[in-house]
């Protein structure tokens, strides 16, 4: 019996071709490189207003891709990622007070957030889905209340970074901040992409499809989720550190605001949850909405929230999902595509 099925599999194997995508995406890599190069050239041609806006976009994109990893792939709906935004910002402040340059402080702060994520994970991992969500929120508030107790870090009113680099011009400082922001975003997106193509991506897909089945097949569910939580902590911490560098001012209320989570969640949901491309598209939509509606105070958050709710209920896979349905394009393929015959013309979509 077993030999028969083996031969079937073997004979089928000859007829099957497995690729990462339906189309050749080698050009995506080239395209990504070109785009990064173009972005890196921006400080030479753009004004400071545009650069500041771009840095804001980098922060949102980094946060969104981390939240996508959490909610879209690991099923961890965290409403408390602002804990890491705030911690990242405060680590930069703390290091800067001790004469560490704010640009050097940024990666250290990100790693620090990853370390802090381990005990925080231990606290909230006991709760599931909805209760996990609010527990992360409580945790973020608790972290903020603790930080407010240190007058040396500015207490409740916050403080400016005391040792900003003594560069020849503000333009150079803005350009440096921009390049650091670009680097943070590229590293964040690259990390998520590489992780999801590898073993972790497979593990997370298995957990998402059927947690019990995955667990009984030997998938280490707890460790995988913790790894994702720590990585998201590092990413959100880097974004928070970038926020501190770009301001350069840190205040507990704004950096620990739940609005950060609202922004990252809505950007992911509108763009398309569970895809690498979704956060990119969602961030673009967010930035446009925010710019268009910024003269109407908080209207952009209301519109964003309503759009996100509608997308979740009507087009669950977001804008990128809609594009994918019609165009079958994956710029960053992390799944597999099964082809029925050698050189077969129609691919069979893997089960979602």
């Amino acid at each position, binding site marked *: 019996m077993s030999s028969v099925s083996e031969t079937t599999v073997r004979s089928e194997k000859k007829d099957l071709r497995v690729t990462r995508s339906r189309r050749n995406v080698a050009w995506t890599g080239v395209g990504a490189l070109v785009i990064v190069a173009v972005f890196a050239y921006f400080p030479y041609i753009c004004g400071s207003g545009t650069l500041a806006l771009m840095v804001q976009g980098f922060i949102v994109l980094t946060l969104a891709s981390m939240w996508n990893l959490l909610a879209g792939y690991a*099923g961890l709906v965290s409403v408390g990622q602002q804990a890491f935004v705030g911690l990242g910002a405060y680590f930069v402040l703390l290091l800067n007070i001790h004469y560490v340059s704010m640009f050097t402080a940024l990666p250290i702060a990100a790693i620090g957030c990853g370390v802090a994520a381990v005990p925080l994970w231990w606290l909230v991992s*006991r709760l599931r889905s909805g209760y996990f969500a609010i527990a992360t929120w409580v945790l973020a508030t608790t972290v903020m209340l603790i930080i407010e107790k240190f007058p040396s870090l500015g207490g409740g009113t916050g403080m400016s970074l005391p040792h900003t680099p003594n560069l020849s011009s503000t333009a150079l400082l803005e350009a440096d901040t921009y390049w650091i922001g670009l680097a943070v975003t590229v590293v964040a997106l690259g990390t998520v992409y590489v992780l999801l193509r590898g073993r972790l991506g497979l593990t997370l897909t298995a957990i998402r499809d059927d947690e019990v089945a995955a667990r009984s097949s030997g998938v280490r569910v707890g460790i995988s989720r913790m790894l994702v939580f720590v990585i998201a902590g590092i990413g959100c911490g880097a974004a928070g550190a970038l926020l501190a560098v770009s301001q350069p001012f840190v205040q507990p209320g704004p950096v620990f605001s739940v609005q950060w989570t609202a922004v990252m969640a809505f950007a992911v949901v509108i763009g398309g949850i569970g895809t690498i491309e979704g956060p990119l598209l969602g961030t673009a939509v967010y930035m446009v909405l925010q710019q268009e509606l910024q003269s109407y105070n908080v209207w952009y958050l209301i519109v964003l*929230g309503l759009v996100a*709710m509608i997308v979740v209920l009507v087009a669950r896979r977001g804008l990128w999902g809609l594009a994918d349905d019609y165009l079958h394009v994956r710029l960053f393929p992390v799944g597999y595509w099964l082809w029925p015959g050698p050189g077969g013309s129609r691919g069979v979509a893997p089960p979602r």
Partner: protein
Amino acid sequence: MAWVNAIIQGVLTGGLYALFACGLSLMFGVMKVVNLAHGDLAVVGGYVALGVIAVTHVPVLLSFLIVVPAMALLGYLLQRTVIQAALNRSVLTTLLVTFGLSVVIENALLQWKHADSHSLGTGNAIITGSFQISSQIQIGYLPLLIFAVAVVVLLGLQYFLSLSKYGRLIRAVADDREAAQLSGVDYRHVFGIAAAIAFGTVALAGIAYGMYSQFAPTTGTDTILLFAFAAVVIGGLGSLWGTLLGGVVLGVAQQIGAQINNSDQLLAGYVVFLAVLVLRPQGLTTRRAQS
């Protein structure tokens, strides 16, 4: 004596927190919905009461006669439309939809009512009055009244769910909605009724908070939702008695924290919450961990 006073005040405040938590607990117990807009809806209740009092001039203590049915109706409608639609999809969807609702409500209130604080019934003798027990212990009529209301609501709900015919229906739907459906029960309607009850208690919580303290658009998330959640977790998920106990523990922890250092009130409450999460993740009242 100051400590005894802190504990008494904490117990009474705990009643308010249990009232916050009641609707959250009920909606999770019946629909498995964690309503992240819970706190914002309580604030909406507060604003509705403000409007109702301004228009009809009803006494503040009787405003609930109008606000509770109005919020219950809103709850039924929201459950039958948006929340049910989200439930039909996935847990993730319900979380995202209620989170979206929370952000939309909070910012709409900010846009419409600005960040100003409001309170209900200032100048009313019952709301501001108190009686003296000893030189250091003074008990306000209002906290006592809110505590009594919380006990009545939670006990009443427990009684309703375990003994009444409709309560049995709600429990049946909560246990197995397909089986209930096969027995001829429209589970969507039952969910709607449960949501209506939950929103009714949310309205009570909003009015109570408005009389007890001041509310602003952001109160919903940074106070009501988080306190409600802490009370539910401390008490143990899915137990209304536990929710009352959880509220009381949270209230006492906060008052003792305030007694130690005035700025430590909130932190003390959350530290107790985290301690319970570490030492007894199943809560104080439930025996086994629930998945």
